[in-house]
């Protein structure tokens, strides 16, 4: 196994139970400038270090969750459901 994620519903599971959903991004408002939409649609932060990201527990409770993971070490710091009170 390469690493584990703790699903807030199902507990610690192999990363292979999840589908990776990419970095968490703020969607621009519908009338935002074209440049803002370009950046949102195409460019990525591609963080080398801790990033907030989406995961879908495909082989478990089938819910989307968010995590903070270090992309250099793959260490997962925290996981939560996005509608939960974020501390």
């Amino acid at each position, binding site marked *: 196994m390469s690493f584990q994620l703790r699903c807030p519903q199902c507990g610690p599971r192999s990363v292979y139970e999840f589908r990776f959903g990419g970095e968490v991004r703020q969607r621009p408002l519908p009338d935002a400038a074209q440049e803002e939409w370009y950046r949102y649609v195409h460019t990525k932060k591609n963080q080398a270090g801790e990033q907030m990201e989406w995961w879908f527990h495909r082989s478990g409770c089938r819910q989307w969750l968010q995590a903070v993971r270090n*992309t250099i070490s*793959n260490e997962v710091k925290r996981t939560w459901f996005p509608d939960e009170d974020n501390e």
Partner: protein
Amino acid sequence: MFSLLRKERMWRSHDLRRRYDVVIVGAGVHGLSTAYHLGQLHGVRSVALLDRGYLGGGNSGRNTAILRSNYRTPEGIPFYDASVKLYEQMSEELGWNVMFSQCGHLTLAHSDAGIVGLRVRAENNQLMGVDSRLIDLGEIRRLVPGMDLSDRARYPILAALYHPPGGVIRHDAVVWGYARACDRMGIEIHTDTEVTGIRRNGRKIESVVTNRGEIATETVLNCTAGWATTISDMVSVPLPIVSYPLQACVTQPLKPFLHHVIVSATLHVYVNQTDKGELVIGAEIDPYQSYNMRATLPTLEQMATYTLELFPQLHAIRVLRQWGGICDMTPDFAPIIGCAEEVDRFYMNVGWGTYGFKAAPAAGKFTAEMIATGSTPGIIAPFTPARFRAGKLLGEKAAAAVSH
């Protein structure tokens, strides 16, 4: 054998000078090829190649060394064809054997949809003068008698795209050959030299900051593959690149039985046998973004499972090594070559993902022309970083990605 004992050095180390005309970040095959062509074709020799690791320690020393030009799009096919042709002359040009073996390349189809996709490629390839055709089971059996072509397989093989000029090369030899040629022209290679910042004044670059001191320059070329965004971040140029690990492995040597490169997108695997007899096996990218190069068991299991689908007789062989590299994936599976829109003379030759080794001679040649003359050669124009803003993405996914 005796050449191992020679006294001559392939490249020398130097103190860092205070300024260079061009600073290239990343001394993988793309940085080296661009530096070589800058010196060889344009007389630009005040060039520093900086790499934070050892020479060829990035993807250029981690790939499965497969070369081919049977891509799918009218932008991709002539570009990769030009590159393979430059590889054909490389040993002679560099006076250094890069061991290019054009053993032939087969891409397998396991479904009707797969056949249609390969037929499109074959037709496009032939229109553009690339030797490539669809072959049936009878011909596959003659070329690769050791492969399971029965209908008992989980995904039976139905047809293949056969590309005779495709093959494998010695990747380290390419890197060393370019490094030697650069060194002889007075181009400096600095390993263990990490770029930690780039200073700019408005749209102009002033200097590159490294762990060994600061270098004045107006021209920077980013050739850092998986780390591309960490460099472009230094001048606040966002890129549509996400870094994913790609893994490969090599088995114990076996008697020669496989004389072609075999690729299956359905099975997410590619296999070839080296002259030493080892099987080199590559996987698809890991299913999550990461900068971590550690090899993992699930990917090894996947490579083993799919290789056994093709060659069940290999069930008892041993794996010698497994490793990973970090790939700079773009959304349209095409590279990003050009000058940043936001900063003058901040060039990039990145986005090579899982498929960039074969592209290095052509990408380096035309990137060098762009840097030396200030105008972009038509053959690399479609790869401009401006294509995303303009909504002109390329359609290379079907021919460049192993799966998806």
